[in-house]
């Protein structure tokens, strides 16, 4: 969505809270996916998605477009919600078995499928051991398919810094995978 169209929607939602539903429809899938990838299960993803939109709804009046798109604002709220969730409950991320099972659904070769699932599980576990901002980067890049410029706005960095962080993240992930195999 173009910035101008989005700006019109936000203005409408500020004046007419019922119009917030349009913003919700636009972004609920993306926010949910982001949170699901961070938490690894549907129940918590549902809870935190609800909290994210509730907070956005209640604080919409304080949002002003200053180069930060509405989506970036929502992602920040979602990111903070996930961070608080971990801090408050001292939870550890878990690899969703649902996600692993969903992956195997299309594979007709059971042996290969089992091996693929094992590899995917190990990879997801390694991703979840990375610092939060690196997980965020990988999810925004590959699951949300955002451009570096958009990721930079969400994470409050320059585009160049995002590219460097991505490089370092892949190196760290490779290290984590090796560590996981050695354990």
């Amino acid at each position: 969505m173009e910035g101008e169209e989005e700006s019109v929607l936000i203005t409408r939602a500020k004046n007419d809270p019922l119009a917030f539903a349009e913003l919700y429809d636009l972004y609920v899938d993306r926010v949910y996916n982001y949170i699901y990838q961070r938490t690894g299960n549907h129940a918590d993803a549902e809870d935190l998605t609800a909290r994210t939109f509730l907070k956005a709804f209640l604080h919409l009046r304080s949002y002003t477009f200053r180069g930060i798109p509405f989506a970036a604002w929502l992602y920040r709220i979602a990111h903070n919600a996930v961070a608080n969730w971990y801090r408050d409950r001292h939870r550890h991320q878990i690899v969703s078995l649902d996600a692993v099972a969903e992956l195997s659904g299309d594979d007709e070769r059971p042996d290969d499928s089992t091996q693929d699932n094992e590899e995917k599980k190990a990879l997801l576990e390694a991703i979840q051991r990375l610092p939060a901002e690196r997980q965020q980067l990988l999810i925004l890049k590959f699951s949300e398919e955002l451009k570096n410029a958009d990721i930079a706005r969400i994470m409050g960095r320059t585009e160049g810094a995002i590219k460097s962080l991505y490089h370092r993240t892949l190196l760290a992930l490779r290290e984590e995978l090796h560590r996981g195999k050695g354990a």
Partner: protein
Amino acid sequence: MENEDPEVLAAHADQLNNGAVKEIRRLDMPDGDKAELLCLMRLAERVKHALTPVNPSPAYKQKLRLELLQMAPRGAGCDVVVARPAPHREMVIGAAIGSAVALVGGVAYLIRSYMQHRPHHPDHVRS
């Protein structure tokens, strides 16, 4: 050459998202550097494959939408009301018992102190 790695990897990630990955063989770099980059690219492809997008259920989306719309008449500027869980009955009773025990202990201590320090009146003293 290493400084180019982030640029090459970022371009590769964009290609992954667009579904068209070009061959890296054309890159003009030593074989060792190219092998390192290829290794990271293969890893990025696995990450892309693992982080398959997940959508919420239609029922959930509808329910949350409805809840937000029900809040709408109250306005977006209303205060956030954080629902705190009501204290458990057992905790209240426990706290009351704890307070009572502390009170009784305090009174007992005062009485004991008073008894120890009060003036003695020996029987043999006669007025």
